[in-house]
């Protein structure tokens, strides 16, 4: 449905600044009917990407194909303007026009570019669209009288009324409060799925991305780092950045010693751990061992080490109470810290000795990031190394 290949965009240097390379040869492919998320920290290029697809931003190189139409191609010197791409878009600020009523806002796309389906048709379709977003009867209200959530629904109705071939959503949930965000996320997914439209969704929130999308493209510093279902990226991250951005994790620098089939042995400061290895890693590589906080099986008493699991012993350094679960910092030998989640009712005492069983299936060795990646990861690495 949507194919982006080798897209590049560099913002020219502002006076007193340097040029910013927002997109570095990015390629993507979105299937018909999928909800596709562009996920990444701020400044990773995800919004630039969306703007290029919408036609609000002109790339420097590459190619964008929507359906069967090439809307941008550097080589063929094709560029379809934003108003002729026939898309729907929900903006971060909603961009509801305050000088128009709700119905006028929603009807706007029906009246553009020579189309005028007639008064009755318009009224009918506006009503349908408003009913679809559960705002039936709000048509005559002024757009300024709406709450944030309602404005967002109006924006959605406006983006869908002309039956666009592709729906673009630019962080549509970020201006809502936390509770509303969760409900809207579910509703949004149900709505998009019921219409069957293809959607591209930009967000910096991994929970949002995991909850709403069929596929996620994880972006970092102008590049797509990994594409896949959220489950796939969570369970099989390729890099430390992917592991850290999708969910949280303990990132432990290690050296790969023994590669055999899917399993490898990681030599860490606190011992040798058997784990799965990401593709492309070889024996002797310096890499990162990813242990999700919910991966270790915690046991206060010694247990028999099983075949495919390592066991480490440490002391509880601190316990943080988070409601349904607790976060336990475990001090391992050689000054390493490991964060693990535990059931609130199993809280250990501080200083208590604790045994962690690490099944090889739950541990994964990934590539180290190059210098450009997320600082959060670097900090963790530094902590662990210290």
């Amino acid at each position, binding site marked *: 449905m949507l194919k982006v290949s080798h897209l590049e965009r560099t913002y020219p240097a502002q006076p007193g600044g340097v040029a910013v390379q927002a997109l570095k040869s990015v390629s993507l492919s979105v299937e018909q009917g999928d909800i596709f998320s562009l996920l990444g920290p701020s400044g990773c290029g995800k919004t630039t990407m969306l703007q290029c697809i919408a036609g609000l931003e002109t790339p420097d190189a590459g190619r964008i194909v929507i359906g069967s139409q090439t809307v941008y191609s550097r080589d063929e010197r094709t560029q379809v*303007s934003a*108003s002729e791409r*026939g898309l729907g878009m929900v903006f971060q600020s909603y961009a509801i*026009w305050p000088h128009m009523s709700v119905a006028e806002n929603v009807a706007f796309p029906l009246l*553009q570019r020579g189309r005028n389906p007639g008064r009755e048709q318009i009224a009918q379709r506006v009503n349908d669209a408003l009913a679809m977003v559960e705002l039936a009867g709000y048509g005559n209200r002024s757009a300024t009288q709406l709450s944030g959530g309602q404005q967002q629904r109006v924006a959605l109705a406006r983006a869908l009324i002309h*039956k666009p071939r592709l729906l673009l959503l630019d962080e549509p949930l970020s201006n809502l409060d936390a509770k509303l965000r969760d409900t809207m996320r579910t509703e949004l997914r149900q709505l998009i799925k019921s*219409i*069957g439209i293809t959607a591209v969704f930009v967000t910096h929130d991994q929970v949002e991305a995991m909850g709403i999308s069929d596929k996620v493209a994880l972006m970092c510093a102008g590049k797509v780092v990994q594409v896949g279902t959220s489950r796939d990226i969570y369970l099989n991250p390729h890099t430390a950045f992917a592991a850290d951005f999708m969910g949280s994790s303990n990132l432990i620098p290690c050296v790969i010693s023994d590669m055999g089939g899917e399993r490898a042995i990681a030599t860490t400061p606190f011992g040798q751990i058997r784990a799965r290895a990401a593709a492309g890693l070889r024996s002797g590589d310096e890499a990162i061992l990813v242990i999700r906080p919910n991966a270790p099986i915690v046991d206060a008493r010694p247990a028999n080490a099983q075949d495919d699991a390592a066991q480490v012993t440490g002391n509880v350094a601190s316990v943080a109470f988070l409601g349904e679960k607790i976060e336990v910092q475990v001090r391992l030998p050689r000054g390493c810290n490991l964060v693990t989640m535990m059931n609130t009712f199993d809280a250990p005492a501080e200083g208590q000795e604790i045994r962690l069983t690490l099944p090889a299936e739950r541990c994964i060795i990934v590539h180290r990031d190059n210098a450009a990646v997320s600082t959060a990861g670097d900090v963790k690495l530094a902590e662990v190394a210290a």
Partner: protein
Amino acid sequence: MMADVSADQPSGTARWAFLGSPRLIKIALLTVVATLVLGPVIVLLRASLAPPDVLPFETSIFTLDNFRQIFAGNDTVNLLTTTIAYAAGSVLLGVGAAALVAWLTERTDMPGATAIRIFLFSWMAVPPLVIGFGWVLLINPGNGALNVFARSAFGLTSPPFTIYSFWSLIIITAFSVLPTAYVMLGGLFSNMDPQLESAGQVHGGRSFTVMRRITLPLLIPGILSVSIFMVMIVVQAFEIPFVVGLSAQIRVLSTRVYLLASPTTGIPNYGLSSAFGVCLLGLACLLMGVYFRCVGTGEKYRVVTGKAFRPRRQKLGVWRVPVTCLVFALFGIMVLPVLMILWTSFMASYQVPSLSALATLSLDNYSRALASPFARQAIFNTLILVLASATIVMLLGSLIAWFSVRDRGPAVRILDILAFAPTAIPPVVMVIAILLVYIRTPVYGTIWILVLSSVTVQLAFATRTMTSALTQLHKELGDAATVCGAGWWTSFRRITLPLLRVQFMSGWLFVAAHTSRDLTIPLVLMTSSNVVLASAIWMMWDFPDLPGAAAMAVLLVIGLLAVVLPVQILANRGRRDA
């Protein structure tokens, strides 16, 4: 719902769509603005290098004679020192008074602050021409009303006041500087974060110390930049020096430029006039440079917006009543000349206000004025001039603003600079340059050349107003229309302009008021067929038909106040609600 996708997809490009492409509009804008602004400037430079007595198109000779003549004698040095002393003196008085009044209305508990604010905002609309005439009637040494009163009251033999002195000119100009300076300073005073002062007090400063060490230093840059701006305005100003200064033989650069181009006797010397114009332009550019150095280039588009603070108000205590009386007395003096004009407009022939003359009040002048085809023509022309130029310049300004905010590129930089340039070009110089450009074309002599000149002169203001308005408008509002399928024009017409309608309307009003009260443009370009109210008043005054001129002046002032006053009252209500 996906089934009928194809039905709704855009079906080919409309035939004239290319006309709406932003690139084409940008090129058209650049051409229009360059013609408006650069054309006159180039012709002015050419004329200043041409021999006297010929039009710049009719010669191929380049000569520095005009400049040689200017810098030959002491005359020019005198002219420059007079101009600077005049500007500095009136700005010192005017801005000083304005700062005091601004502090009183914004930062103290003086009563009547809202009334003062409305009065000063509206008073900006009163034509300087009318105020100048009013002062002539009030304090001319022969039969000025104040002089007559003073003589009979105190038994003086010689008149205590005279309009024909340098000081009178400065004081009258200071009164006209006051409202504008107040408007600029008021925002500065009320938008100052009171926490800065509170911090001073909490850390042990007493009221007076806080004021001296914190409030004043914080305000100094603002007051200074307003002062420089006002010096720029006064150096460029033409009407008051023309009405008041000429009889007093006080010549400043702006009147000199005019007199050389339109002498009362003899033939116009466009060469010398242009050369003086170039000098005045240089002086204005210099002041502009100082102004920007002072406020920083980044503040070019800054308007007083930002967070609305509720500033701490100083209690005046025992000073409250005397200070209030003093301020209202000041405004009494400001209103006096207009009252004098009002009085004269009811007289069959001019006479000093007195109880005995009350019986002779009549509306004859008004019926006479409204009956004459001359006056009707003037009113009709004024309406065309005001409606056309305000609408055109605001639309032009909005378009330029859109490109300068949303589309940055080298072409837009040039557009930006060109649109801003008229600020530095004194209107009198600009108009003479426009005269030189169009004198041989059919446009000359019609009302449309006045429209063209007003558009050029007001372009910078319109662009600045709309630019600052547009920067506050979220970009996504326009993007949303584009993604919905709206072309550039539709998006501009249906989304951008309606969202900026408040700023557009207030800018429109400002331009309309300034265009209708302005004498410079109509006077320089005057022919028998394009007389407007301002030039009609001047002609009748010069004729002389003082009561007739007064009646026309009153009509103009009433017309202006009728538009401006309600808007100011509404704006003030909005301000209080906010």
